[in-house]
Structure formats: structure tokens, C-alpha cells
């Protein structure tokens, strides 16, 4: 088979891999795919495009921010240290970008079984391996090419051709090591999320892995705001430990490449020992990258053609059917589903996401001590997130439609379950906001009570958003929704959550304007919330039908 033919066929296989990864990342797609395949296909194409645009934007942002800080921000330290550390920070962050942005797609590569059909065709082993490799290249080509081009071009413009060449070698090595790590971790993650030994440690690993991945993704998107601080922190820390520390750092990946580039650009400043260390380190890590490249190819072949064993070793466990109350049974089931899927695990990371987004915003809003208004705005953001969390939880049930159809489950039980689940991240969000308020010292300690009083609003938001979605999409019956292909539901959930959650905040604000008393304002917030909880408990379920 000619390489051009192999490239063309690899396009078909890569499309299938992306499709499977799309399904794997969001359980709701699994049911929707039969219902409306065109819509899923369009969503997939648009997601691929968005993914490329995101990768490009993030890599450009990281390159520009790092190069600007390295070249022009004199407050960060000496120019050699700035270039060395900035260079390394870019490599670390692009490593994270390549790793996290492609994790679900790589997992999809393992589950897709996309190579099974070609393996039944009259192709030789060499042709199959070539097809396999081409598929992998086609999947990862966009972020790989981008990360190897954008930063070196920036280096060429600012620091000249030698630094640009070093940066190209560094980026290529970085990509190779990142992909090697990606394959190992994807393999492990896929195994852990599909393995079902019931041990507590295994469950903890699953939740921690899901949470780590989601937090990693969030960090990538928000790292730009903290990048100069990161460079300053590393330079500051290294400087405080003496000049010898830079030499040690020059031996560590990916600082070796940074110090080698700085040694070329600022040869008169960098000590010879540091230059030598960076040269040895860079040569060593380039070698590691070559080995990683070769091993990745072999590992990929073995996985895609042979699969990953997810069977649990050991003896068969005793058959026992354990029962609980219907509500607990539903919650347990939903939590199990949530920990076995990256997209579903997102709900656990909502409080962290909220803090990452709100912390710089609160700092910007509050000129001086924290007052009531920024606190109210922050709480309203949390309400909005509460609505989106509820819709994410509603996505779980699209997976088990056949089971649901036969079970005597009342719509109000489903609503109560979903509400109970979202109350946890909502309460954690409120506690997280309290910590943020504490970091930006409030004008009165009473302000710290606002998020705590708001906690029961999670119940109001859950019930009102859930009932609205059931009414709009199911005519009052409990339905599963898919936010990725039904964005209108996401918007609706946000609006309803914002409207329901703002009532106690408005009560607080009006009482504050009228009386200027924190105690009366908090009382108004609590009282209005109590009324809303009662309405949610007794009136909202009347909107539902079985």
C-alpha cells in the first residue's frame, strides 16, 4: 500500500476514533447517536474544530505570554534567568496542554476497536502498522505541529536563529515525551475506569484520577493569568538557594533546554558549569525523547491491535444483592457512573472551577476590603454553576434508558436524587467562596455568613431547574438531556438557576439598602430562602408527571 493511500485510509480510521472518543467522553451521546446521528456528527465536527482552535489559542497565548515575560518583563529577574525559566515554563505548560487536550481522544483510540476492521482485510502486518501509525499522526497532528512551530517562531523573532533551533529541538523532545506519557496514562486511566474490583482504594483512585484530569484541564485554561507569577516564583526560589541551584536545575527536564538557550543568548552571564549541565541534560533528554518516540509506536501497535485487559484478576466474589432505599440506590448508581467518566466527573470539580474563575475577578472588583456587592455577585455566579451542574447530572441517565423504561421510578424521585447530588458541590462551592472571601478580608465578618446561609439554595436550584427541564423536554416526565447537543437546555438551566438563586440575594441587598444592618440583611436572605425551600419542596413536584 502506498503511503498516500495509507494516509487516506488513516483518515477514515481517525474519524472513527474521534467518534468513539466523543461517545466515551459523554454518556449522553451514546443514546442520542441513534436518535439523531446527523446532529451528533455535526457536534463531533464542530467539537474537533473547536478543539483545534482552542489548542491554537492556548499555545499562542502561552508562547506570547512566556516570550513577553522572558524578553521584556525586567521585574522578574536577570535576562538569562528569565529566558531559561520562561523557556522551561512554556515547555511544561505545552506538555500539559498536549497531555490533557488529547487524553480523551487517546482513550478513545484504545476503546474504538477502529483497527479491528482493517485487520480483517487482506493487509500485511507492515501495512497494518503503517496504517496504525498514520492514524495516530492524523489524530495528534494539529497540537503537535502547533506546539513545534509557534514558540520557535517567536524565539526566532526575539532571540535569533540559534535559540530558535534549540527551541525547535526542545519542543520536539517535549512533544515526544508528552505523547509517551499520554499513552501510558491513558492506558492506565482506561484500565482503572473500566476495571471493577469493588475495593475502596480502587474507587478512590478512580475519583482522584477523574478529578485530577478535570482540574488539569481547568488549570490549562486558566494558567495564563498566573504565568508571570509562576516564572517569578521559580526565579525567586532558585535565586534564594544560590547560584549552584541553577546548575542543578539545568540538569532537570525541561529546564536543561531553557538554560542551553539562555547560555547561547547570554553566553557572557551564564557560568560555564551551568552551560555544561544544560548541554548534558539537553542531550540526555533528546535521547529520552527518541526512545519515547520508538516505544510509543510499539506500545500503540500493541494496544490498538491487542487491546487493554480490563478484567479483574482473582476469584469470583460471592453473589449478594445489596439493597438500600430507592433514593440511596439512585444516588449510589449516579455516583458510580460519575466516577467512571471524565466528562461526568466534571461535577466534582465545579467548586474548584468556581474559585479559579472568581478569585482574580473578586480581587479586581474589590478595591480595598470585601464588601457586600462583590459577595452577592460571586454568589450569583455560584447559582449559575449550580444550574449547569444539575444538567450535567441529568446526563447520566441517557446511558441506561432500557433499564429506566421498565422500572417503577417516579419522576419526583429522580428529581430528588439529582437535587441531592448537586447539593454537595453547591455546598462545597459556598464553603470555597467563604475561603475566597476570607482571603480578600471582608469589611464585616457578617459577610462570611452569606455563603453559609445560601447553602440550602442548592435544593431550590436543583428542584426548580430539574422540574423546568423535565417540563420543557419531557412534558413533566423525567428525561435525560445532553448539553453538548442540546445547548438550549444548558442556557435554560443557567437562567432558571440564576433567577431562583438571586431571590435571597435581592432580599439581602434590599434589606441592606433599607437598613444598612448586616444582621437584618442576613435575616432577610435566610427568610426568603426558607420560603423558597418550602415552595420547592411542596409546589415544584406538582409540575411533574410519571
Amino acid at each position, binding site marked *: 500500500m502506498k503511503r498516500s493511500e495509507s494516509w487516506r485510509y488513516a483518515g477514515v480510521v481517525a474519524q472513527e476514533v474521534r467518534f468513539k472518543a466523543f461517545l466515551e467522553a459523554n454518556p449522553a451521546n451514546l443514546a442520542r447517536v441513534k436518535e439523531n446521528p446527523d446532529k451528533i456528527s455535526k457536534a463531533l465536527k464542530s467539537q474537533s474544530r473547536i478543539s483545534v482552535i482552542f489548542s491554537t489559542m492556548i499555545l499562542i497565548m502561552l508562547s506570547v505570554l512566556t516570550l513577553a515575560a522572558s524578553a521584556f518583563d525586567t521585574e522578574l529577574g536577570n535576562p538569562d534567568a528569565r529566558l531559561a525559566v520562561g523557556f522551561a515554563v512554556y515547555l511544561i505548560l505545552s506538555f500539559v496542554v498536549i497531555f490533557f487536550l488529547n487524553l480523551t481522544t487517546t482513550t478513545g483510540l484504545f476503546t474504538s476497536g477502529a483497527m479491528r476492521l482493517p485487520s480483517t482485510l487482506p493487509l500485511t502486518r507492515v501495512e497494518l502498522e503503517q496504517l496504525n501509525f498514520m492514524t495516530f499522526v492524523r489524530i495528534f497532528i494539529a497540537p503537535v505541529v502547533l506546539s513545534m512551530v509557534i514558540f520557535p517562531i517567536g524565539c526566532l523573532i526575539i532571540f535569533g536563529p540559534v535559540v530558535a533551533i534549540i527551541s525547535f529541538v526542545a519542543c520536539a523532545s517535549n512533544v515526544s515525551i508528552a505523547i509517551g506519557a499520554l499513552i501510558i496514562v491513558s492506558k492506565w486511566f482506561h484500565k482503572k475506569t473500566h476495571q471493577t474490583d469493588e475495593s475502596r482504594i480502587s474507587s478512590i483512585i478512580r475519583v482522584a484520577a477523574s478529578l485530577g484530569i478535570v482540574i488539569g484541564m481547568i488549570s490549562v485554561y486558566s494558567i495564563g493569568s498566573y504565568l508571570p507569577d509562576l516564572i517569578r516564583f521559580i526565579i525567586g526560589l532558585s535565586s534564594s538557594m544560590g547560584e549552584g541551584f541553577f546548575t542543578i536545575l539545568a540538569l532537570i527536564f525541561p529546564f536543561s533546554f531553557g538554560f542551553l538557550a539562555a547560555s547561547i543568548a547570554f553566553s557572557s552571564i551564564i557560568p560555564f558549569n551551568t552551560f555544561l549541565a544544560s548541554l548534558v541534560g539537553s542531550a540526555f533528554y533528546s535521547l529520552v525523547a527518541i526512545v519515547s518516540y520508538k516505544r510509543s509506536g510499539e506500545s500503540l501497535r500493541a494496544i490498538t491491535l491487542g487491546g487493554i485487559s480490563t478484567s479483574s484478576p482473582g476469584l469470583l466474589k460471592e453473589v449478594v444483592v445489596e439493597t438500600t432505599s430507592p433514593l440511596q440506590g*439512585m444516588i449510589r448508581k449516579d455516583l458510580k457512573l460519575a466516577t467512571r467518566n471524565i466528562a461526568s466527573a466534571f461535577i466534582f470539580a465545579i467548586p474548584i472551577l468556581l474559585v479559579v474563575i472568581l478569585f482574580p475577578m473578586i480581587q479586581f472588583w474589590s478595591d480595598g476590603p470585601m464588601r457586600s456587592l462583590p459577595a452577592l455577585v460571586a454568589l450569583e455566579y455560584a447559582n449559575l454553576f449550580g444550574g449547569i451542574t444539575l444538567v450535567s447530572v441529568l446526563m447520566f441517565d441517557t446511558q441506561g434508558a432500557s433499564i429506566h*423504561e421498565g422500572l417503577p421510578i417516579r419522576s419526583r424521585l429522580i428529581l430528588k436524587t439529582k437535587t441531592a447530588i448537586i447539593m454537595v458541590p453547591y455546598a462545597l462551592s459556598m464553603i470555597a467562596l467563604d475561603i475566597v472571601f476570607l482571603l480578600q478580608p471582608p469589611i464585616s465578618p457578617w459577610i462570611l455568613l452569606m455563603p453559609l446561609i445560601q447553602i440550602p439554595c442548592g435544593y431550590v436550584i436543583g428542584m426548580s431547574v430539574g422540574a423546568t427541564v423535565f417540563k420543557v423536554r419531557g412534558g413533566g416526565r423525567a428525561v435525560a438531556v445532553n448539553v453538548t447537543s442540546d445547548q438550549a437546555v444548558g442556557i435554560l438551566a443557567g437562567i432558571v438557576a440564576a433567577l431562583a438563586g438571586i431571590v435571597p440575594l435581592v432580599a439581602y441587598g434590599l434589606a441592606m439598602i433599607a437598613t444598612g444592618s448586616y444582621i437584618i440583611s442576613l435575616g432577610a436572605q435566610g427568610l426568603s430562602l426558607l420560603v423558597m425551600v418550602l415552595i420547592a419542596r411542596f409546589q415544584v413536584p406538582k409540575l411533574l408527571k410519571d
Partner: protein
Amino acid sequence: MVAIVIENLVKSFGDLVAVNDVSLEVREGEIYALLGPNGAGKTTTIKMLMGLLDPDSGSAKVFGIDSNENPVEVKNLVGYVPEEQQLYDSLTPRELFNFIASIRGLPEEKITKRMKEFLKALDFEQYYDNMIITLSQGNKQKTMLIAALLHRPKLLILDEPFSSLDVRSAKIMKDIVKIHTENGGSVLLSTHVMEVAEGLCDRVGIIDEGKLIEEGTLEELRSKSEKEGATLESLFLKLTEQEEDVAKGVAILREALTD
């Protein structure tokens, strides 16, 4: 008492009348097969019976309970296996059955004993702790069947239940269906496999283009279509006026395969 009473049931999707004035009864202790070509309206009828779809007009009752008015109570009485296998892929059968038993409020000890019996009979023990996504179609089908039988329902509604089962499991399931009716239970079965309907069912209803065109025992259908000793397959093709289409299709294929 009659297990199922469907009266003048009508359901349209836009211009398409999927179920058109269907009336039928399934008696207690009876196995009733609903037969029909693809898109005939079998699954839509069953979905209305389960309270999953609202009928445009007419009614469907299970043991006197209206499916539209009280679907939850209907589901308490019914064990349902839908045509499509959309299970919780990320759960194991153990987790799934724990969930189902919790929702149905079944007693732990009794249900554990019953589960052990099911698993042994269906040779399913080794898959009990594997994630459902990793199971074969046949084992997924077994999972669905166990889920439907777990609470010993009075009525079984099975939409294409044997399609993916191996010979051993299919035979066991057919026997289970028979035992179920011997104990007074009823079964409504939708299937494409004529041999299953012929060998298992007491009465047959043939549905085509949304209408129940004929029903009765095999003997009654033979006499109505004046085909003595005919198999259910040939009766079905005659009653649904597909005999000519089948002959044409076979002729075209023969030509294509001998070219």
C-alpha cells in the same frame, strides 16, 4: 382476570399513523406473540402499554390499571425487556441489580437466593463483576432478562428477547417463559422469529402498518387463511401480503450471486 386489555389504541407521529385502532387482550396464563414486519407498530404499542408514550386515543390496561394514568404501578407488575439494549454500560451487573432491587424494594435475602439461581442457570456467574460495556450482546441480553425477572412479575413484556442468546440460554429462557405461565403469569412477546412464536405461544396477533390484521391460535389463523398445515412463516407472509415481494427479492439476489 385479563392481564392486558388494549382498546382502540391510536398513536401518530406527524403524518404517520404508527398504531391505528388496535384492540387486543392477553389472558392470564397465556403467551401472546405480537408479530409484524419492521415498522409495523409493535414497539409503539408496547411502549404505550408500558406508559412510556401517551396514546392519541384509546386505552391500554395491565391487570385493570390504566398505563397512561398510573405507569409506575404498571411497571411494578411488569417485567419489561425492550428491543434496544441501552444498559448502564459503566456499571457491572452486580451494581445494576443492586440498583434495581433497591428501586423495587425487594427483600435482600430472597433476592440473593434468586439471583444465584439465575446466574447458575444462565452460566453468567463469571460476568457478574465485569463492566457491562465489556459484555457480549448475548450476555447483555441475559442481563436485561434477569433484570426483568428479578421481582417475579405477573406479566412479562418481551420485545425481541431471544435475538442474541446462544442456543443453551435461549432454550433456558423459553423454558422460563413456560414455567412463568404455568404459575399463572402472562407473557406478551414481540418477535421476528416465527419458530419461537410457533413453538412457544398460545395465540398470535399479526400487526401491519399499525393495524392488527389478524389474531388467534395457529389453527385459527390456518383456517382463516385457508392454508391447512401451513407454517406460521408462510401464514405471516400471506396475511401481510409479502409473499410476492419475498419471491422477487430472492430472484434478484440469486441473479446477483450467480453472476
